[in-house]
């Protein structure tokens, strides 16, 4: 057991920290961290940040050097996330391109595709979204109905996608379509296209969430076009492409856990500041018990992540037990943000400019409900753990 970092890893941390301090937007470290409300302006600012990361060599550290990455180890990726959380760095607008599409193309894309797309992913010139879920295909993604039909040397795409993050700013979509029907084996007959979002047949509409944010979109395709060169992998073998893509998302949960740990420390501060009957809330024995309980759960989740990471480093790839990390961090986030609102008393419902403390708590609380749904619901995670970790039989219908 060893919790230390190697000299090389420490050097990496210092190099990144120094770069961030010199290159973050002006005033960011001092707390001036507001991003523009206007979508176009928001997109412009974050594309510029992405480009700055690229120029500093920090856009896609896990990619191989020959494609503009740093060949970073898993531990270096962990350090990267720790440092980004430490300075509350601006979000990565091309997250999907950097962490999912790019690595998948490096892995199974053609030389032409690598040449055409990778650099623009790095620079932020082309932002990516993913077209997976549909109104009739949520947890059961194989129920997707968006069709791609060959018409001469073009493919015509018709259908509707939903919950498309970054859809409103994206230039390209990593799109799952049905190209043939196999009622008994529904994961067959799916093909992945890299679809251009800027064409007459593609329309996006933002979805307004319960917190007022518009993080997701509906995407409608009416005779949208694509060519053979836009297909990732082979026709009808999109399911394998999707699985390959998911394996590339190696350390995203780590980033969420570091954020969770920070939220917990902030919650403790909140309990120290709030007063009930003239006394700091943190002196209340019941609040202390709850904080101790959260401390155990937050530390336990983080340590469990390190345990699974150790296994991943030793085996070269993550095992099914990493589903535990996703389940735990999202449910804990939900419980913790609810607690942070609860300890603010009735004022906990006050929003934005009227919020009694940092308005982030109300936003975290409202956003926490989506976390146990997106990226595989808690129920789907529990099925995965039950079936792939414990070896329980698959449930009916699958």
């Amino acid at each position, binding site marked *: *057991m060893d919790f230390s970092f190697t000299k090389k890893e420490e050097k990496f941390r210092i190099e990144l920290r120094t770069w961030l301090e010199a290159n973050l937007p002006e005033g960011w470290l001092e707390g001036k961290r507001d991003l523009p409300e206007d979508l176009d302006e928001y997109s412009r600012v974050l594309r510029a940040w992405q480009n700055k990361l690229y120029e500093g060599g920090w856009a896609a550290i896990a990619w191989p050097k020959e494609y503009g990455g740093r060949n970073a180890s898993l531990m270096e990726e962990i350090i990267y996330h720790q440092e980004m959380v430490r300075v509350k760095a601006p979000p990565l607008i091309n997250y999907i391109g950097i962490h999912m599409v790019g690595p998948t193309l490096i892995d199974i894309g053609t030389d032409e595709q690598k040449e055409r797309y990778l650099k623009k992913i790095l620079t932020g010139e082309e932002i990516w979204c993913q077209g997976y879920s549909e109104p009739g295909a949520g947890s059961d993604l194989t129920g997707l109905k968006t069709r791609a039909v060959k018409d001469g040397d073009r493919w015509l795409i018709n259908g509707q996608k939903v919950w498309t993050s970054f859809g409103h700013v994206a230039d390209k979509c990593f799109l799952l379509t049905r190209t043939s029907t196999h009622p008994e084996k529904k994961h067959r007959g799916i093909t992945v296209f890299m679809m251009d979002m800027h064409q007459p047949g593609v329309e996006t509409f933002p979805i307004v969430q319960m917190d007022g944010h518009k993080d997701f979109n509906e995407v409608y395709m009416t005779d949208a076009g694509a060519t053979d060169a836009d297909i990732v992998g082979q026709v009808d073998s999109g399911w394998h492409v999707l699985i390959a893509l998911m394996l590339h998302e190696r350390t995203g949960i780590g980033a969420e856990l570091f954020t969770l740990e920070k939220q917990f420390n902030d919650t403790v501060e909140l309990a120290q500041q709030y007063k009930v009957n003239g006394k700091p809330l943190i002196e209340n024995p019941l609040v202390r018990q709850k904080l*101790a309980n959260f401390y155990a*759960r937050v530390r336990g989740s983080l340590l469990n992540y390190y345990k699974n990471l150790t296994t991943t480093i030793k085996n070269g790839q993550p095992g099914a037990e990493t589903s535990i990390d996703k389940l735990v961090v999202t449910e804990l986030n939900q419980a913790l943000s609810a607690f942070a609102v609860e300890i603010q008393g009735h004022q906990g419902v006050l929003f934005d400019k009227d919020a009694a403390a940092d308005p982030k708590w109300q936003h975290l609380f409202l956003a926490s409900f989506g976390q146990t749904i997106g990226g595989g619901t808690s129920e789907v995670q529990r099925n995965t*753990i039950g079936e792939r970790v414990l070896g*329980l039989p698959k449930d009916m219908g699958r």
Partner: protein
Amino acid sequence: MDFSLTEEQEMFRGHIRKMLDKFGGTQLAREMIDNNPENLKKVYTTLAELGCSGINIPEEYDGMDLDALDLVPTFEEMGRSLVPGLFMETSALVVPTLKKYATEEQKQQYLPAVASGEKLVSFAALEPFNDFSPAGIQCTLVQQDGQYVLNGTKTLVPEAELADAFLILVRTNQEDQEDGLSLVLIDKTEGMNIEKLSSFDESKHVAKIEFNNLVIKEDQIIGEVDKGWMQLQEGLLYFNAALSSYIVGAMESVVNMATEYAKIREQFGQAIGRFQAIKHSIVNMKVNLEIARSLSHYANWVVDTDEFDREAAVYSARTYATEKFIEVSAHNIQIHGGIGITEEIDCHLFVKRARYYDQYLGSTPFYQEKVVSSLGW
């Protein structure tokens, strides 16, 4: 970074598991219900032969001078089979306390005997109708005519009938609550009135001990007089790290039982593990187990360091483990259905032990408060 046990530690686990399986695993606990500790004694002899009883004892006292983390496989495996007895009290409470506070003579007298397996030590703290706190300790040790005299009653003393010696928390000063307690270590003598108590966890024997003017020599007091509570906190750190490991082993057994049963038990024409109501319940048990394991491995590593979160890590491992042990052992009965509430199936052994350890040497709120205050909150 490497957050895992070493190959040697895992190999050692294999030896212990094989040995305990040879004795029938939980059969050892069942034999204790029948007041038959013969196989348990053999297990303890074998543990000593394997070197387990000397793992954390310095070489000059015939031990191996290893760390708390090296005891983890032993405790997890003992928990897996719910092995009763005094191994944990002896190795994880008495040994660390003696190492830190005892005189050279006291160490010479006890540590080699513990390492060889010759001496098992029980711990007597709780008193009837009192709680585990400085104010709850009323047994008096009073100086009279150049000697010390012990009076009072201790309760819930584990496996007193198997103990060769007792570490006892006594009051030496009425003026000060916390700084008025001392630890004494005495061999079992005729002068103790030991009475077995009836407990619903029948595989874990507990007794009441009455002391009537028992004469204690000054050199049987550990460390400084009146500083017993403070000294005990050091022992409790090691003990709770060990306890969390034992419970992790026990929880693993419980999760395995539930999983295997859900694979073979059929209702409505299929294995019940196919139903999400059952599957997800077992998954929740598994998640609790893995979080508890991660907390306990870290606790057993950090306890031998001077990291800032040393106390918080140990006590949060303890509270999480005890709380979740109760939860998973109860779910295990529900998943087994009717057979789960019978004496025949092991489910009840785990539920009862979960309750035994929940309040053993401090409650959940007691340790939660320690977590929060040790972090300066």
